[in-house]
């Protein structure tokens, strides 16, 4: 379970995240949607303990990440939007290191590393430096790193970027199985179709605030848009360009 209470982040006069209240129950796959610059990544980085909130609290499994960061992080697997890994470590070494950060080692972890690499079809590259990996391979390695210590909660920022269709499908199935077994996933995505088909609940953020939240049916009801698909609903809430404006831009 993840609980955000009045979560706020300000950079000088600019408010990136503006008093977000949200509860993501255990055993749910939760979609976090919003246009670029809405505050999604900032929110995720605060949940992961990378950014300090200006005010408000974040709880992971009932543990406050600001006051008891180590215990809260122990339950968390974070997958960032950009796959930066150590260039001079091999894939195997990176996963061993990621597990060690959570205090885990030994034969069980070695088996787990092999399983994960096998699942993501990276076994062939286990002993090669990650500087030779493609963007998609790095993304898969980072996802493996977030899973290696068997977290209770996964926070994942734009997981599908850079993945081939087969890996994307694998990831969707993986997250579904993870929540079916009692895990929690908070995922941001721009692929609305993914959110619509995968997520139990969604929240749409705009200007640092949640503008709609609930199951798809609940969000449609809240916004009186019963007949709209998620894409139209999203554009309605976040302000897409009108046809007239598009014409003006294209005609120059």
């Amino acid at each position, binding site marked *: 379970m993840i609980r955000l209470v009045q979560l706020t982040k300000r950079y000088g006069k600019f408010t990136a995240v503006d008093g977000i209240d949200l509860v993501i129950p255990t055993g749910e796959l939760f979609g976090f949607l919003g246009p670029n610059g809405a505050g999604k990544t900032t929110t995720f980085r605060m949940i992961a303990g990378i950014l300090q909130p200006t005010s408000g609290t974040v709880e992971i499994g009932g543990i406050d990440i600001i006051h008891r960061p*180590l215990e809260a992080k122990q339950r968390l697997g974070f997958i960032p939007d950009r796959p*930066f890994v150590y260039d001079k470590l091999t894939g195997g070494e990176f996963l061993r290191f990621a597990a060690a*950060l959570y205090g885990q080692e030994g034969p069980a972890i070695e088996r787990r590393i092999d399983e994960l690499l096998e699942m993501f079809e990276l076994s062939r590259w286990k*002993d090669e430096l990650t500087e030779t990996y493609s963007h998609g391979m790095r993304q898969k390695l980072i996802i493996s790193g977030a899973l290696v210590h068997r977290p209770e909660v996964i926070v994942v920022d734009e997981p599908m970027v850079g993945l081939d269709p087969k890996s994307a499908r694998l990831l969707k199935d993986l997250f579904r199985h993870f929540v079916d077994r009692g895990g929690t996933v908070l995922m941001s995505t721009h692929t609305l179709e993914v959110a619509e088909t995968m997520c139990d609940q969604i929240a749409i953020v705009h200007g640092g605030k949640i503008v709609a939240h609930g199951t798809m049916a609940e969000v449609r009801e809240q916004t009186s848009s019963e007949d709209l698909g998620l894409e139209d609903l999203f554009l309605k809430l976040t302000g897409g360009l009108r046809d007239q404006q598009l014409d003006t831009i294209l005609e120059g």
Partner: protein
Amino acid sequence: MTTASIVQPSLWTMLTPRWRSALARLRQEQSGAGGRVLLLALVGFMFWAAVFGIAYRVLRYFRGVAEIGNLMAGKVLGVILLAFLSLLLLSNIITALSTFFLAKDLDLLIAAPIDRSRLYLSKLAETIVHSSWMVALLALPIFTAYGIVYQGGPWYPVVALAAFIPYLVMPAVVGTAITLILVNVFPARRTRELLGLMATGTIVIALAMLRFLRPEQLAQPEGFRNLVDYLAVLRTPTSPLLPSEWTAAMIMNWLLHIGDPWPIVKLWGVAPVAVALGGLLHRWLYHRGFSKAQEGAERKIRRPLRGPVAGFLRFLPVSKREFILKDLRLFFRDNTQWSQLILLAVLLIVYLFNIKSLPLHSGERVPFRLVTLISFLNLGLAGFVLSAVAARFIFPAISLEGRQMWLIRSSPLDPQAMLWSKYWVGTVPLLVLALVITVFTNWLLHAGVFMMAVAVGTIVLYTLAASALALSFGALYPQFGTENAAQIPTSFGGLVYMMSSLSLLAAIIMVQAGPVAARLRIDQFGYPPGHTTAELVAVGSIVVATCAAATIIPLRMALRTVERMEW
């Protein structure tokens, strides 16, 4: 649309993102921490004052010596500028690889319809600024001292600037050209590694030459047959084909009112020609090189670092152990990092060779005062070497975590444990090095038990503090975006660290010099009687307290900074 009809952006426009970013960074720094800016200003002022003070005293002395004095002043300026020139060349070679081939803005610039010469000039300007600012900062107090001692007049700053600008441009053009050729021969990732080795090799040769040519002979006129021979050596330019000589000549000609236009003609004639030739080479080779630079190098690891090292660290919890192993792996696999060990080895050999060749125990009677002075100078030199080593290996520790910090920060690894690991991974080898050089050089100097104890105690305390300072300044001024580990210590934060640690070293030596020398005199001659033991205890306590403060306070600051770091 024809090529000619495409309007090209001005050089200023192309450089706008760079200077605007620099200004924004400066504004952020200033608004964030007033205390840090004040500390920086203070340390910077102290360091400049020290360089200026030394240069001023030396030049005043030269000025007082008829005929030879002016020649010596010119010669010294030539030697300083020659040393700077070799630094500039190396720095430009390394920087050009980042600015011309690995920078993040290159995709954007190359995809745009920008003329190649325009791209060359803007990237050359960027390279010059990045690689030369530190030399320019160091040169400023030296040039100022020349201007004041030799009464250069109100136009002197303009003359000095006119002599210095082409001097900075030429090594940049040559360094860039070398990089361009190398990238065309090797893929960029390999080239970067090759450059690390090449830079090290060049410095090794330069140091060896400097050592074995023995420039200190110039300071010993008695070694020459007669005064005419000595004057002849002083008058002969050391390296007449190098811009360092032309710059020194232009400045000295102005200061001594000598009407010789040749240095100006050479500087302002050769520099533009060099830029033009560099532009041609760029036009010819750049595109092929850039394309090649995008090719990655496939590499398998032959010897993964486990077994004995992991066994040795078995007593540590798994998170700390794997963190240390990770740092060691990254260090030994990154040629820009480990190759600096070769440089360190050469520096050490030159240093020990110098100490050994001192004529203190060659049979001639050397004044006691001089022996004591040398002992303290040795302490200072050892401290300087350790500071430089810490700048190379400990200062970049936080920066090298860089863009991977998300992993550390989102994991339950305590920031304190991370700092702890980084501090000891750097400090333990540094302590071993400190003890080896201190004990060995004091043995070479035939130091007594007391002096040996003072030196060992001081250097151990200083090493602990210098490591802490290096780690802390590395955290305060991180370089997360850097493409090359060897560039991190030459950043602004690296300079501030060096100035701070050297100020601490100077303070420690100054505090203990008097009482220790008094005690040595008593041991040697039995006079003058006094309460030296009490003084020594007091001074020892001050040194311990200062070093402890310089270790604990910076580490606490670093911890706070790392905990609050946001990216």
